């Protein structure tokens, strides 16, 4: 028995059956169209939210580790972390001299200060003290000028690199390079502008910052601060290895006894993701379930139509059986019909949701319908077609030929 010959015949039958009852097929398909449209749009929206999140934390750097007193999203209370020993330049030097798997690292500290240029004032600008390695660690590109050099940073030169927001505020239509600004009451010469960074989680602007040599920072604003040591791993795929190395060096530097827990945190972008997942995971699942519900309703509609279709065609089933159709042949006939309806609905659903996703992308939130969502839409409509068609098809295949031939 040639399977493909039967399948081809069954497709022809399905086509005839669907086109013979156009209104009924249209209404049955509508349920699946709505279901697939909502499922694919939901997934597209989730994708958009994910992308927005990824973008908002990209400044953190996927390959950068942050050694700090605090642990991001840590479980202990604030005082627990605050009372830890400070992370010092000596520890930074020790780590810097011993770490093998780090590409580059820099210490950072920061504080909020008022900036002035002539009579222009910017309140509460974040001042970062760091070394020349900062640029490489975070992979920053310069909009104008340059970052400070090793000798400038070690020599505590009064130079600064500014963010785009500050450039806009102070130097709207002029060249900022070489100009002198005041950080607090101290003068600094602008030597570079960092290109636009955006913001972290949409909350903190990374462009409203001014970066100065860390030695200068200590001299002017006080040295008794805990640092953040920011380490770029040599290989992002070996981030965990770098993390372990950093941990053991830091434990040695801070004299943590064997068996005691770390008295510092090694933070990374991952922490944001984990927190994000735990916050949004349930919402995504619920959203997916609710949209799937519409698909289930749609497929119940199709199952219903298929039962009617089987009942109506009892005589036809009898005829087909009399001239040699096997159970499986009849089964496939109705399964293919229901799958064809669902697949058609799925394709129409995708054709509707795709342009809608473009509209969402243009006006609501940057997203794109990923290919896997289209594949999912097709797969899901296939699956629901089989599920909706199975019992009607099974009941058709089990029909007694004598009884069904007698059916009028």
């Amino acid at each position, binding site marked *: 028995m*040639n399977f493909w*010959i039967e399948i081809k015949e069954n497709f022809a039958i399905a086509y005839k059956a669907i086109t*013979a009852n156009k209104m009924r097929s249209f209404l049955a398909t509508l349920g699946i169209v709505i279901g697939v449209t909502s499922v694919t749009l939901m997934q597209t929206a989730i994708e958009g939210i994910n992308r927005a999140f990824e973008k908002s934390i990209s400044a953190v750097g996927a390959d950068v580790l942050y050694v700090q007193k605090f642990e991001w999203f840590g479980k202990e209370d604030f005082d627990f972390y605050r009372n830890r020993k400070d992370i010092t330049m000596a520890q930074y030097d020790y780590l810097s001299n011993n770490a093998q798997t780090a590409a580059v690292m820099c210490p950072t500290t920061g504080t909020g200060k008022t900036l002035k240029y002539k009579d222009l004032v910017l309140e509460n600008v974040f001042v970062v003290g760091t070394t020349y390695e900062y640029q490489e660690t975070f992979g920053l590109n310069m909009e104008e000028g340059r970052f400070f050099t090793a000798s400038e940073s070690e020599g505590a030169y009064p130079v600064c690199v500014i963010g785009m927001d500050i450039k806009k505020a102070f130097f709207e239509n002029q060249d900022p390079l070489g100009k002198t600004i005041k950080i607090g009451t101290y003068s600094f010469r602008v030597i570079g502008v960092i290109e636009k960074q955006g913001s972290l989680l949409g909350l903190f602007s990374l462009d409203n910052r001014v970066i100065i040599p860390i030695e200068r920072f200590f001299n002017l604003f006080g040295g008794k601060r805990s640092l953040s040591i920011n380490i770029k791993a040599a290989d992002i795929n070996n981030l965990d290895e770098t993390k372990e190395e950093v941990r053991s060096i830091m434990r040695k530097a801070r004299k943590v006894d064997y068996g005691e827990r770390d008295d510092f945190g090694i933070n990374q972008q991952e922490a944001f993701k984990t927190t994000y997942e735990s916050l949004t995971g349930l919402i995504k699942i619920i959203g997916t379930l609710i949209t799937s519900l519409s698909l289930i309703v749609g497929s119940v509609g199709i199952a219903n139509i298929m039962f009617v279709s089987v009942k109506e065609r009892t005589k036809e089933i009898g005829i*087909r*059986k009399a001239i*040699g*159709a*096997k159970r499986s*042949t009849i089964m496939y006939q109705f399964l293919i019909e229901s799958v064809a309806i669902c697949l058609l609905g799925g394709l129409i659903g995708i054709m509707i949701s795709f342009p809608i996703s473009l509209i969402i992308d243009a006006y609501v939130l940057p997203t794109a319908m990923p290919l896997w969502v289209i594949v999912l839409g097709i797969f899901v409509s296939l699956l629901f077609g089989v599920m909706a068609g199975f019992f009607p098809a099974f009941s058709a295949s089990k029909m007694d030929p004598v009884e069904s031939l007698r059916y009028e």
Partner: protein
Amino acid sequence: MMSNSNGSNSESATHLITVRNVTKLYVMGSEELYALKGISLGIEKNEYVAIMGPSGSGKSTLMNILGCLDTPTSGDYFLNGKNVSEMDDDELAEIRNREIGFVFQTFNLLPRSNALHNVELPLVYSGMHKSDRLERAEQALIDVGLQDRMKHKPNELSGGQRQRVAIARALVNNPSIILADEPTGNLDTRTGQEIMQLLEELNLQGNTIIIVTHEEDIAQHARRIVKIRDGDIEDDYLSKRGKEFQNAKTQ
């Protein structure tokens, strides 16, 4: 197995059809009804047999069993040497496809398919390729005189033409038997005569034909008449035509 035979058909292996002690029991609630009460029958290749009986006699049940649409409650049915009574649904479907061509009183064509596709359908189920199928189906329609009605749908054909399509469909797979259930029941007398004429020609060409009817004059077209009453064979004799035929053969 042979010891169970009731004697008259002991050389069963040589028959095209051998029915031995076949019963069919219908249970409706608490009531049991034997539609067939142990029928034994042998039919040879190229015979033309009419099964006659009033309604409720069990002739339809017998036809369903002979057509492999149903299986007996007990007893054996050998078709072409194969014991059909022990087959499952799919094996029966295959036997119906290859060995039996049905002609029904109500034609039973697929309403949405044209004549050609209706005739082609048994070949689809036997897994034949499209080009071969079309060739065979066209030939079968030509054989029943419908060469210019191939693309017509059943509702565009007269009753007689529909029955010819059904006969072409029954013939197309070269079955061992053509089983016709009241083939003229829905036709006027003249068209009915034409259909009986066609069946006669098919018999002369070597086909084995079994018709089920309650009409005496239709039964007279067959060479042998088997009368059924109350689930049993009442009579089994040669018709007038059958006797003429036998005389011609012996001379």
